[in-house]
């Protein structure tokens, strides 16, 4: 990747600008107008309103208290709120475990299905298929599997492995890993697909040359494959991290944040505060804090990983 970028010549600019002057100047603006207006109205404006609401007392059930609150909401988050730090901690644990395991398994899976073998097409379709499945559907499936009276554990117990017991979802000791396995089931294909897409563009000549030089498969992997995948992995990890942080579908329906708040992530806490508690002001303040944390972590991550650095 780096080599070819260095060899490539810049596009012939002069010719392009001559052609451009012949086209109507307004056309590109007209073309991006629908997307731009939709994003201004339904992304930019809501983001600004979140910041605005975060400085307000805004509770549908207590309208008499509504009004400007300054930084009261934020002070409350950091001083009084007993659920904020645990939910943030659980979010961090959730993101780190998910992203690490999804990356490891997804990379392995991509390397396997990138080989040529009989049944490759159908195997790809099958191992990637959970990606098409929603969080709620994943919950549905794993609720059936985890069910204590008719689920998988009952059949294992019947076969003499383990014992009859309560559902792994209602036990504080097992709920984290139960939810983790369910999310991995549908999350691994995402990494596998992105990495596989990037694997398609590794030059086979590099492997050929490495073989001739006597490099084994492990060395080829660490010196050719991994460096090639570097940017894709950094990007996929970041997108997935943000997504795993933000997404609430699975945990909302699988555990509802329980038992005993054990699986309440920060966004789930926000959703509960806003939707069920109707406290929009406080939920917005929590959102703002979550957004700032996410932004900060993303920037630090991009800095540390030196994303795209060697290509500029």
């Amino acid at each position, binding site marked *: 990747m780096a080599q070819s*970028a260095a060899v490539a010549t810049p*596009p012939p600019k002069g*010719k392009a600008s001559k052609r*451009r002057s012949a086209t109507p100047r307004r*056309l*590109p603006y007209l*073309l*991006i107008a*629908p997307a*731009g207006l*939709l*994003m201004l109205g*339904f*992304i930019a404006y*809501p*983001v600004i309103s*979140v910041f605005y609401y975060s400085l307000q007392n805004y509770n549908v059930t207590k309208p008499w208290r509504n009004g400007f609150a300054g930084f009261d909401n934020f002070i409350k988050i950091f001083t009084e709120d007993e659920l904020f730090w645990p939910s943030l901690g659980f979010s961090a644990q959730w993101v780190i475990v998910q992203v690490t395991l999804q990356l490891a*398994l997804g990379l392995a899976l991509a390397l*396997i*299905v990138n*080989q*040529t*073998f009989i049944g490759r*097409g159908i195997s790809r*379709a*099958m*191992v990637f*298929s*959970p990606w*098409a*499945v*929603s*969080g*709620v*559907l994943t919950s*549905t*499936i794993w*609720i*059936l*599997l985890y*069910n204590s009276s*008719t689920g998988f554990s009952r059949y294992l117990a019947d076969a003499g492995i383990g014992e009859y017991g309560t559902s792994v979802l209602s036990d504080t000791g097992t709920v984290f890993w139960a939810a983790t396995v369910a999310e991995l*089931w549908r999350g691994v294909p995402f990494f596998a*697909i*992105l990495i596989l*897409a*990037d694997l*398609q*563009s590794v030059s086979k000549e590099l492997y050929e040359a490495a073989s001739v030089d006597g490099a084994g498969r492990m060395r080829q992997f660490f010196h050719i494959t991994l460096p*090639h995948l570097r940017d894709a992995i950094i990007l*996929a990890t970041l*997108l997935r991290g*943000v997504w795993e942080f933000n997404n*609430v579908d699975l945990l909302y329906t699988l555990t509802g944040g329980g038992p005993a708040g054990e699986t309440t992530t920060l*966004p789930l806490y926000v959703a509960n505060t*806003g939707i069920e508690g109707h406290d929009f002001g406080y*939920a917005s303040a929590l959102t703002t804090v979550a957004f700032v944390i*996410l932004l900060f972590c993303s920037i630090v991550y991009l800095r540390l990983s030196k994303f*795209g650095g060697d*290509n500029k």
Partner: protein
Amino acid sequence: MTAALVEKKDARTPGTSRGNSTPPPSSHRRTKRERAFDDVPRWQIYLPLGIYLLFTLIPFYWMFLFAVRPAGSTSLVPWPMTGAHFSKVWNERSFAVFFQNSMLVGVATLIATTLVALAGGYALARFNFKIKGAFMLALLCSQFIPGALMLVPLFEIFKNLQMINSLGSVVIAETVFQLPLSIILISGFIKNVPISLEEAAWVDGCSRFKAFRTVVLPLLRPGLIAVGSFAFVHSWNHFLFALMFLSEQDKQTIPVGLNTLIGADSVDLGALAAGGVIAAVPVVIVFAFIQKWLITGFSAGAVKG
């Protein structure tokens, strides 16, 4: 970040967007070449793949089993089968209505996303304009803004537009959150179509629009199918927008319907499984059909190094 990748791709194949060099080798040819260097022992492929396949397929099988097994049965083979759970969910639990709503939302989101992203993607791929950089930046930043955390202001907006309880609100929200990635992907596809093809059509007297429609659009078909299906699958699956913006039961979509089954006091596992099968079938079919294009789509559109 994706910007860097897209730019890089440009730099790597400078000719393709300006039309003065040979097109890059197609992925099909590359696949054939791979075979020569394929010396991994078979068991190292089939053993881990087999284990992973079990992990992937057992949950699907489990759902299917519960959906067709008569109530009270503990059999692990789906025989004798019963359609009782399906007819119950479909008729009594309103899944017929949910299915129709989800289809409407999915198809509308697919059409809206594809059209808007096609226009935006064409602008990014073929023009240089003043706010191009800012527009790209906005697309990328929006990836970091969580849909879940925007629920409150979006709810307010749709309330003011009097669109609460209308499927339109969900279509708009889904489209907006699909757009950034779709635009980036589509502009990647368009960059892969040599501009010389369009220029040739202009010389022949075609308008820009006609040249696009007759020359570029047919070549974009695989990419558009990937982006469109992606939008469909996402909106079919997405839960929170529908949960928040649609409070009347006959306006709900399938994920919300599933959630009410989960939340029922005594969970009817057979009904839940049947609902799950109904939710899974359309997207899994769409996905099996497009997964090949999705892989090439991602490698052409966003993550190609």
